[in-house]
């Protein structure tokens, strides 16, 4: 099959667990159809084949944590017509951004026998903190249906249908009973970006905010509610410092609670 007019897709990895790329491999039924519409030019998780750029669509997973990453992401941007970030690492720095709140030197000497071998930046940051990105698909990991929607939207040159309202909207549309109201279980759904389909509330648990901040999160108001339900400042610091700890809104609120705690 000739690929001359087929758009070229590249999938890139930075600091991450590979889970989001795996979502693409997970699209078993659709992957074949995708590979007919897009030439998979670079996707090391799936194939050793590496076709040189430029690329029409780059999917970027992972956060920027080393000096090499900094250079590499610039090159990828230059070679990509569209650059889409996938997952919490790429959109907010990921769980590894917890280092941003600590001294990296200090804990690398505690963890590694020869810490001088470790060459790393002080922070783990999102792709958008370094280059212009065309779209961010949030989630830890991303939802594979949403990934297909983003790829389709790119192929058909339209806006992706990825609502940025709260998890509550999905929770209610699915007819679930609110765990916060009906059992006093603290839930992060009201400040969290939709996308998971409210999986946790469906299993009677509060939302953990895997999908990061929603479009206009009122983290202060939700924190007050959590406190009424018995959460301490420490608890609040912890729940906002998970997979999306360095996302702007979560970062700000966890620092706020940390200061108050002291």
């Amino acid at each position, binding site marked *: 099959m000739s690929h001359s007019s087929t758009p070229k897709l590249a999938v890139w990895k930075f600091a991450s667990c590979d889970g989001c790329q795996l979502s693409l491999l997970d699209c078993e039924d*659709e992957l074949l*159809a*995708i590979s007919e*519409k897009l030439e998979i030019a670079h996707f090391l998780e799936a194939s050793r084949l590496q076709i040189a750029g430029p690329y029409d669509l780059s999917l970027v997973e992972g956060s920027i944590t080393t000096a090499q990453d900094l250079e590499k992401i610039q090159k990828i941007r230059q070679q990509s017509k569209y650059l889409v970030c996938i997952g919490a690492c790429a959109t907010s720095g990921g769980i590894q951004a917890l280092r941003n709140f600590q001294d990296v030197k200090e804990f690398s000497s505690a963890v590694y026998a020869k810490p001088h071998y470790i060459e790393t930046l002080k922070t783990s940051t999102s792709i958008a903190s370094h280059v212009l990105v065309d779209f961010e698909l949030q989630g830890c990991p991303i939802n594979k249906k949403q990934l*297909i*929607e983003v790829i*389709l939207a790119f*192929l*058909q040159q*339209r806006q992706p*249908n990825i*609502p*940025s*309202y*709260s998890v*509550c*909207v999905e929770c*209610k*549309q699915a*007819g*679930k*009973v*609110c765990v*916060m*109201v*009906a*059992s*006093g279980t603290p*839930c992060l*759904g*009201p*400040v969290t970006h939709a996308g998971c389909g409210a999986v946790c509330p469906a299993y*009677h648990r509060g939302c953990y905010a895997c999908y990061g901040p929603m*479009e*206009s*999160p*009122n983290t*202060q*108001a*939700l924190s*007050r*509610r959590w406190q009424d339900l018995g959460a301490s400042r420490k608890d609040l610091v912890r729940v906002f410092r998970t997979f999306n700890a360095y996302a702007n809104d979560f970062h700000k609120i966890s620092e706020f609670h940390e200061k108050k705690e002291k």
Partner: protein
Amino acid sequence: MTAFSIDRSELDSLFQALKKRGYEVVGPTLQDQAIVYDYIESSAELPVGMSDEQEAGSYRLKKRSDGALFAYAVGPHAWKKFLHPSHQRLWTVKKQKGDLQFISEKPNSIRYAFIGVRACDIAAMQVQDKVFLSGTEKNYFYKELRENTFIVGVNCSHAVSTCFCTSMQTGPKLLSGFDLSLTELIENERHIFLLKCGSKKGEEVLQELSYDQAKPAEQEAAQKLIENTSQQINKNLDVSNIQELFYQNYEHSHWEDVAERCLSCANCTMVCPTCFCTTVEDVSDLSGDHSERWQKWDSCFSLDFSYTHGTGPRRSSIKSRYRQWLTHKLATWIDQFGSSGCVGCGRCITWCPVGIDLTQEVAALRGIQK
């Protein structure tokens, strides 16, 4: 309206009679620590001996010892879940030999029988009727479902702290809009229902049940029960000059105050039985020759809802979104549809995760501290 009485055991005959007529029976049932609306097979699936306690931001089930079937207030689901579902395909388009073929979606021909519809919720359906059926363009998905629905109403015997139907003059007594109405009476080891017919369809179904003429004492007991419920309601929404109140207070400092508390999570609009707003989404498949347009519930609390091309979201602040919601619900709705958009069911108060209470917000706008 003549009143009849049926024994509690006859409720299952009612279910059977409805099923025989081709209705899907839907009613209150226990799920995930709340009373929701779902498909039910028999009266045993109703929340037997269950009641509830509700406050702003809180809902708790409570057991009762009398085996009552309807002794609770409305829960998190509204009947719009069936009549105006959260996801509805509108049309499909297929590419065939270069031509586009449009196929419009047929309305759903399912026939529902709703069991235990409260007065405020019948009022809510009447509000949605105005929204969907009164203009020149009728929503034929809604129309078909609504016209085919059989309504078994129930008079409320228990109100919670979030109810304020009395302020909105929608309840707790059923006045119209039902095919059959029930009042549950449990006295001296007797568990019966007082029954009235509100339509021809209702009268026909009644003929399949074994019933008696209601005794004057039973009618009196039913009347008392409803009066009692009215008296349990102490939440109040002052609706006098409500339009002027809103139109003169677009810039009231209180909007900032609510915005500090509001999460813009949209729960209030999702649970409200009259909120009807939707968005459309075009979905397509990889082949590129099949696409569908879907209607999905949306909310004035979402940013995209007020997105206009070239200028972005018109209501970017939470303040402007809450103000829009409340102003529409209580004031501009009257201009638009001739009635309030609120029926006083209290759902938005109970199911707001931070317990924002619209009646208190209105009182604050009026300068009254509650």
